[in-house]
């Protein structure tokens, strides 16, 4: 455990950051899309495949034992990371999208019927909209939307009204907006939903990398996130659920691993979490993800938050000085994400040219088209930061952005 945040050392831990792109030093500001991986995660993947690879849970040989232990160790680390009551409420998925679809197709199918309402917010990523529309169409339930105001804050009064004037079965909202960075007041939202008997699914894709999550303190019914946005490998996601809800849910996909006994006259299903983990899982990446969790734990949490906050403030201040630039999403509570539009300039042109200067940002609608429609824009340019980013990188980004705008003017 280091008590001081050493940015030089931290950057060395992420080997990908030290490279030239298009002849310029890489400035990676697309962390909301995916984060980079520390060396310990890369080493773990290598070690797993060079020494430990085997299929898990049933093999009796040594490698199977090692692989199983490694895979399950990550579940134990996650129990600590999320403060879940037990390890068997942690289900490995392929990512947030897979986790939401799992809940929609099992919890949703078993519980939604005609006249029921699923509440999502205007800030959602498509992955927290479309699975609900699909199950709504099948069950006769209806998706309704919590509105968002001009600066990007959810309208809590409207939320309260939506909750009391409808038969709401589930509220599905993101903890943090991927497109504009708003931190939603999820504790309050969960409490309000519970008062009318609705369950709540929190999409933590954009929050886990930035602050601690305690699923019990927040009284979450479901929490989903992806490992790749938390410095871990792609292809791994986590679904946490309250025990009684997970136990009451029918299985999702059928296959190996998820069964207790199979015969042609009938099949009984395995217990949690295996009931929802059909087939051979993503063993290597789950194993390596555990090392990302260890790495995060080794960093001083307060210093990480301070670093990100100072990056957000500095970037906001610098960008605000550019003529014709408008920041989209200025909620008082934000993570280190700045989304912006520039008069007369298409975001795509900015993205293409910034790349030539070695600067990686994201442009477009950020898979949040309803939010773009709300603000009547085609898309934004989004710079999203991680603790390994620096003010010097923001200076390079601003300088490059000014050159791009000169080229485009």
């Amino acid at each position, binding site marked *: 455990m280091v008590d001081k945040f050493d940015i030089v050392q931290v950057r060395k831990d992420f080997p990908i950051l030290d490279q030239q792109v298009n002849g310029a030093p890489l400035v990676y500001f697309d962390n909301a899309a995916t984060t980079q991986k520390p060396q310990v995660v890369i080493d773990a993947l290598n070690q797993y495949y060079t020494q430990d690879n085997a299929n898990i849970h049933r093999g009796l040989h040594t490698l199977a034992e090692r692989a199983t232990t490694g895979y399950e160790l990550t579940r134990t680390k996650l129990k600590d990371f999320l403060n879940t009551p037990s390890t068997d409420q942690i289900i490995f998925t392929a990512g947030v999208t897979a986790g939401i679809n799992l809940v929609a197709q099992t919890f949703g199918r078993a519980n939604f019927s005609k006249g029921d309402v699923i509440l999502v917010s205007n800030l959602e990523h498509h992955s927290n909209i479309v699975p609900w529309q699909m199950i709504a169409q099948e069950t006769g339930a209806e998706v309704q939307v919590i509105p968002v105001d001009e600066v990007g804050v959810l309208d809590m009064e409207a939320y309260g009204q939506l909750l009391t004037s409808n038969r709401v079965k589930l509220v599905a909202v993101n903890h943090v907006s991927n497109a504009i960075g708003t931190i939603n007041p999820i504790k309050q939202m969960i409490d309000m939903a519970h008062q009318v008997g609705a369950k709540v699914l929190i999409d933590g894709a954009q929050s886990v990398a930035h602050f601690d999550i305690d699923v019990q303190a927040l009284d979450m019914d479901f929490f989903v996130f992806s490992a790749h946005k938390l410095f871990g490998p792609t292809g791994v996601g986590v679904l946490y659920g309250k025990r009684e809800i997970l136990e009451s849910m029918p299985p999702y996909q059928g296959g190996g691993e998820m069964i207790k006994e199979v015969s042609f006259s009938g099949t009984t299903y395995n217990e949690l979490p295996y009931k929802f983990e059909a087939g051979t899982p993503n063993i290597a990446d789950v194993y390596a993800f555990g090392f990302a969790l260890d790495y995060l734990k080794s960093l001083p949490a307060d210093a990480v938050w301070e670093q990100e906050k100072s990056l957000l403030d500095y970037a906001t201040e610098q960008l605000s000085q550019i003529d014709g630039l408008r920041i989209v999403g200025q909620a008082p509570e934000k993570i280190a994400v700045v989304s912006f539009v520039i008069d007369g300039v298409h975001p795509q042109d900015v993205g*293409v040219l910034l790349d030539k200067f070695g600067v990686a940002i994201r*442009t*477009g*609608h950020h898979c949040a088209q309803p939010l773009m429609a709300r603000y009547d824009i*085609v898309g934004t340019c989004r710079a999203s930061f991680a603790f390994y980013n620096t003010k010097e990188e923001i200076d390079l980004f601003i300088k490059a952005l000014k*050159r791009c705008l000169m080229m485009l003017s």
Partner: protein
Amino acid sequence: MMSTINQTQDELVEEFGLFEDWADKYEYLIDLGKKLLPMSESFKTEENVIKGCQSKVWLHAEKQGDLLVFQADSEAIIVKGMISMLIRVLSNHTPEEIMKADLYFIDQIGMSQHLAQTRSNGLVSMVKQMKNYAVAFHAIA
């Protein structure tokens, strides 16, 4: 006499060969985008839209005599620059010439990344659509 498709491609390769660095190339491309002949608003219909993930392209084709003439536009200026070159190369040729055209200039001027980003800008679909028009007009000729 009108240049052949390959003559125009070679001209573009030569023009881009004059630039030393990427910034000059892109300034030229942006300039081409700005100078792209405006597309008649009446052709900017839903039918003529090619949707990219980030920006839209509109493409209209019509036969003038034996030749196929294209008009196109985009919301993004760099894409417009690419459109300008594609129109310069392919427009005003017979459907058969367009069908057979091998668009090597894009790679040679170092702009192939704009056709690799398949989801973002609609250019790949636009080239495909230009060829489709050529096939269709060739069939009814």
